[in-house]
């Protein structure tokens, strides 16, 4: 027990320390790297809190893909390289007054958080009992999946809609900049990609399938497959071109569309929307999850690419 306690204390201290370090750094690259490590430790923290689903999502999206997005943006700001020569270091805070007001507001919010947490009555029963009661009718055996895809499927549908909205917004922003390809990587990386990509595809499919009975599911699987697509973009195996737009649009919307169609389709004959017939519940949930996985993977890859595919001239492609 003491070993675990020591580990937990060390973990908590590292998380807080890394958060502070991330905020205090002045070089954006170092900041992002610290943030990625912070995400990894957060995932460990979630695992220690016995929330493996959250841990998986945190490590895949919070640390992995967010980090990739941040690094891509930094490379864009610094004209293709990650070194600090191109400028774009983190600017110093504007002035004392702004800092003071921010500190005051953040302090008030922290006080409210502390009060809300410390003053909360202990051991208020949540909805666990309700979830346990309804599990047999949910079609799956993993409670998190049952909540996400059945009991509160409406929320999950709208979260997928948020992703769709995000990619639409990114596509509609035309920045009038030339296409800057992601930094090309060396031969070692090419070899790594050849080994890692097939394995990652299998891992993504496994996470999707296992979600019905164990931690995993559409978001985690989508993140892993999205990472595969990012690796493909980085290794230039995938070169987005205008001709890909219709396919990409289809991939973005398929999750939302199938989810909403199933939700409406099951209504009728005394059933309301989202009320899956228990006999078909597992099939429908897996169908929805598979389609949502495709959408999430495509959306994350498109966010990494950062814009609607445009025609790229030959020199730029070969650079």
């Amino acid at each position, binding site marked *: 027990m003491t070993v675990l306690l020591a580990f937990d204390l060390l973990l908590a201290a590292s998380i807080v320390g890394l958060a502070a370090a991330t905020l205090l750094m002045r070089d954006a690259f170092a900041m992002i790297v610290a943030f990625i490590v912070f995400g990894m430790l957060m995932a460990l923290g979630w695992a220690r809190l016995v929330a493996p689903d959250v841990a998986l999502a945190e490590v895949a999206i919070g640390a992995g893909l967010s980090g990739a997005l941040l690094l891509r943006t930094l490379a864009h700001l610094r004209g293709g390289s990650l070194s600090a020569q191109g400028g774009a270091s983190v600017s110093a805070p504007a002035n004392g007054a702004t800092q003071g007001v921010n500190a005051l507001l953040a302090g008030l919010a922290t006080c409210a958080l502390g009060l809300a947490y410390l003053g909360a009555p202990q051991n208020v029963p949540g909805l666990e009992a*309700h979830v346990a009661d309804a599990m047999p009718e949910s079609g799956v055996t993993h409670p998190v999946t049952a909540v996400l895809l059945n009991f*509160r499927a409406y929320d999950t549908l709208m979260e997928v809609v948020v992703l769709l909205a995000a990619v639409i917004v990114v596509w509609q922003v035309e920045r009038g900049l030339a296409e800057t390809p992601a930094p090309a990587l060396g031969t070692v990386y090419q070899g790594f990609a050849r080994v890692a990509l097939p394995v990652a595809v299998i891992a993504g499919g496994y996470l999707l399938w296992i979600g019905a009975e164990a931690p995993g599911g559409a978001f985690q699987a989508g993140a892993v497959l999205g990472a595969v697509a990012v690796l493909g973009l980085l290794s230039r195996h995938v070169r987005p071109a205008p001709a890909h737009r219709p396919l990409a649009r289809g991939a973005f919307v398929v999750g939302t569309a199938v989810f909403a169609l199933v939700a409406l389709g099951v209504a009728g004959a005394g059933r309301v929307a989202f*009320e899956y017939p228990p006999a078909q519940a597992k099939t429908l949930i897996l169908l929805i999850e598979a389609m949502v996985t495709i959408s999430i993977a495509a959306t994350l890859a498109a966010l990494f690419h950062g814009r609607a595919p445009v025609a790229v001239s030959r020199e730029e492609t070969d650079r």
Partner: protein
Amino acid sequence: MPEFAPDPMTLAILLPLFGAIAAFLAPRAAPLIGLGAVGAMAAAIAAVGHAVAQAGTVTVPLGGWGAPLGIELRADGLALAMLGLTALIALAVGLGALSAFAGEAPADGQPMPRQRAFFWPLCLLLLTGMNGVYLSADLFNLYVMLEVISLAAVGLAVLGGTVAALRAGLAYMYASLLGALMVLLGVGFVYLQTGRLDFAGLAGAQGSPALSAAFALMLVGLALKAALFPLHFWLPEAHANATAPASALLSALVVKAGLYILLRLAEAGPFPGEAILTLLGVLGTGAVLWGGVQALRAERLKLLVAWSTVAQIGLIFVALARAGTEGLSDSWRAAALLILAHAVAKAGMFLAAGRIKDVIGHDRISELDRSAVRPALAQLAFALAAISLIGLPPSLGFIGKWSLMEGAMGAGNWHWIAVTMAGTLLSVAYFSRALTGFLRFDRVRAPLDEHRGWALADAPPVVLAGLAVGLGLAAGPILAVLDLGRPFGVTP
């Protein structure tokens, strides 16, 4: 259980979603798909209205689970009024967008076909989120809906593609995400303390300092979303730099989401106390004065209209705060009336301002009177909308302000009356700046070119502004609709 299958409430949320998907897949047909989806949504809302008129309050347990395990949709008179308002504004703004995005590329912005193609998916996603907020009876679901609205609204704000719009849009996004995050923290702590997320669970909760702290977090987040002074800093630039149809949606609908959730929380929970209400009123007073002064100083017409939004939102908070003789269970009506009045008038006003800018070529207030070209109908629409926002009879704005002041008098809260009066005088002053520009001709150096024929683009602002004035005559039926299902549990 509803006899419809699928029920109209779900359809009111999902039809715009399907429209958004179709409009995104087929960009060329986007305007047609968009208007069709808005029409279908209006039909679903009419069906919701029928059900609410029959039963008062209708609920749908999505997934068949029912609260607290599942999520319920709930509609009553207040929700119905907001749904109807949203359908009306979406229809009018959609028609306005047809012509606003029909032209060729402007010098400094995005090509028009791109704007036309992307306006509709974003607009329809926004409608999905708005309808979802009105019909939600679950705290976490409200947070998710706020996120849908945030992203769609940011997309609309930067649709113009100018550097100013992008910069303002980025600030808007940060403010919006921060607000949503505060709401999420609050929701989490409410769940920690009550073990439930549905409104019904909230009603039975014991008030405690910890619960108040959780509510305070949500309140700050919602105030940021609703641009309550001094958290309004993101609004003027974001609304003034967006294209006109987008500004109309942002100003008329998006800021109302925060206000609506605030009303719902006040209805459901052991919150807010008298002190919090007074604080909201004081901040609202700040908004009325500061927004008014800034509108007086604005150099561009759209910026003036955007600052007037800050002031009008402040007035709605004053309406909430005045806590009439029976407290919130009375004063919510004045707030709801002001929300409706402001939405209709401001949508018309932004469309009119956009039209004026398109025809004259600029929207600098000091040079409005130099223009030989006068878009007469758009200027008429602007003036009508101003009448409602100022609160002259018989407009809907007048009914709202009257109901506010009547309640404040009844409760003996004369200070709120003084605030309302000051706001009214300020609004007369700042709208006069634009109106004198419309009416003066002595600085025109060229032959007047006043009438260039009617255009379809003139219809939506004129209709909306006309409604903003004319709906005041229908105040009785509107109040009857608001009271359907007795929100706040009080018989009128």
